[in-house]
Every structure is written in structure tokens, then in C-alpha cells.
């Protein structure tokens, strides 16, 4: 193998390795398909296919993430406010061990769907760059809003986006 060929092979190999990291899901893109176990043992698996045609608010959270814990009870209120209009909230828990997430849920019961992603497979697929990260998805499967972090006042932005997505139903 010539030096030129070796260089080409090296560059191609490096490009492959560096390019293998997942790209983040952005607004306007289609929702990646996922299928995750329910955090509650014995409950059915939660998959994107089973939620097709609904307005989804997908949130990645963990028990060690303080802003996540602030946001979840507020999402529960939002869920009760808009569930009759077709809103479905899926709060994907990334705790490993899962028991850490379940301990929080024991004190703070939430009424929406909570899948468990202890290995971070879905988080990697979505290209989560911070915790919490959330994605509002329209009934057509298009990502309408990507929201990272949770600060006071963020709920207004999120609720306005949810209302807009539901109006398009």
C-alpha cells in the first residue's frame, strides 16, 4: 500500500469514527422511532409507533437533575389541562439504577407515560445535549419545539408551543 493510499484510508477511518456520534434531533425533523420499557414493572412497553397521530411532549429526565424535578409536577398539570385535546406526555427516565427514578415517583406521582432508558439508548438517538431536554412533536411526527434546561418562565414558552401544536390537530 502506498503512502497516499495509507493516508486516504486513515482519513476515511477517522471520519467514520468521528462521524459516528449521533446528531441531535432538531426542529422540523421527524421524530426518531423508539420502543422503551415502562419504568413500572409489568406495564406495557411505550413506543413511538403506538403514539402515532398524537401531539407528543417528550422529556428526558433523571432524579439527580434538579431542574427536571421542578419541571415534572408542572408537566403533570399541563397534561391534565390538555390531555382531552390530544396531548400525550412521555417523560423518559435515564436513571441507572432505575430505582432512583422510582423513588422520586413514589413521592411525586405523575399521571403520564414514563418509559425507562437506563442505558441512554433513546437519549443518544435524540442527541440529548443537556438535562432536561424536551421535544414537542406534532401529530404528523414533525418536531415542533426543542427545549433544553428548565428555568422559571419556561412553562409559558412550552405551553404556548403546545397550544399551537394542538390547534393544528
Amino acid at each position, binding site marked *: 500500500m502506498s503512502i497516499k493510499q495509507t493516508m486516504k484510508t*486513515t482519513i476515511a477511518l477517522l471520519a467514520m469514527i468521528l462521524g459516528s456520534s449521533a446528531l441531535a434531533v432538531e426542529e422540523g425533523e421527524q421524530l426518531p422511532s423508539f420502543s422503551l420499557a415502562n419504568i413500572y414493572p409489568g406495564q406495557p412497553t411505550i413506543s413511538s409507533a403506538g403514539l402515532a397521530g398524537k401531539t407528543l411532549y417528550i422529556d428526558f429526565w433523571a432524579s439527580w*437533575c434538579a431542574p427536571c424535578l421542578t419541571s415534572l409536577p408542572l408537566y403533570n398539570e399541563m397534561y391534565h389541562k390538555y390531555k382531552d385535546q390530544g396531548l400525550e406526555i412521555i417523560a423518559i427516565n435515564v436513571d441507572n439504577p432505575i430505582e432512583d427514578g422510582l423513588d422520586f415517583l413514589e413521592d411525586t406521582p405523575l399521571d403520564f407515560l414514563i418509559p425507562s432508558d437506563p442505558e*441512554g439508548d433513546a437519549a443518544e438517538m435524540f442527541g440529548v445535549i443537556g438535562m432536561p431536554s424536551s421535544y414537542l412533536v406534532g401529530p404528523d411526527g414533525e418536531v415542533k419545539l426543542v427545549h433544553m434546561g428548565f428555568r422559571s418562565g419556561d412553562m409559558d414558552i412550552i405551553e404556548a408551543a403546545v397550544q399551537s401544536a394542538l390547534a393544528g390537530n
Partner: protein
Amino acid sequence: MRLLRLLGFAGLLLSVTACTQVQPWERGYLARPEMAWKADVLEGALNDHIFFSKEASSGGSSAAGGGCGCN
């Protein structure tokens, strides 16, 4: 010789990929008590107080937060 040097360099570059970033969803590991510099919080606070009294400076030993990098 040149080929060997090139291959050595490529090997070095490839070994860099072994240093991976802690992903946002993995930062819970960093927030665990066993990851703290000081296992005993109370003793750590006392030591910090003594250090501050002697050196007239404080901080730099730890930071608040769960390590989610979100705020």
C-alpha cells in the same frame, strides 16, 4: 520509515477516541456521593473553615449542582 511514522501517528490519533465525553444522561454517576472529594460533608465544611481562617481564601474545592449542565 515514513510509512511507519504515518502509521504510528494514525495509531496515536485513534487512541485519542478512547477518551470519551461523559454524556448528559450519564452525569448522574458524577453526582453520586462516592464521587465527591470529601466523603464526610460535615468534616469537609470544618476543614474548609479552617483553611479559610488560615489562608484567607476559600472555594475551588467543589461546586453546587447535580452535574446536569443545564443551568
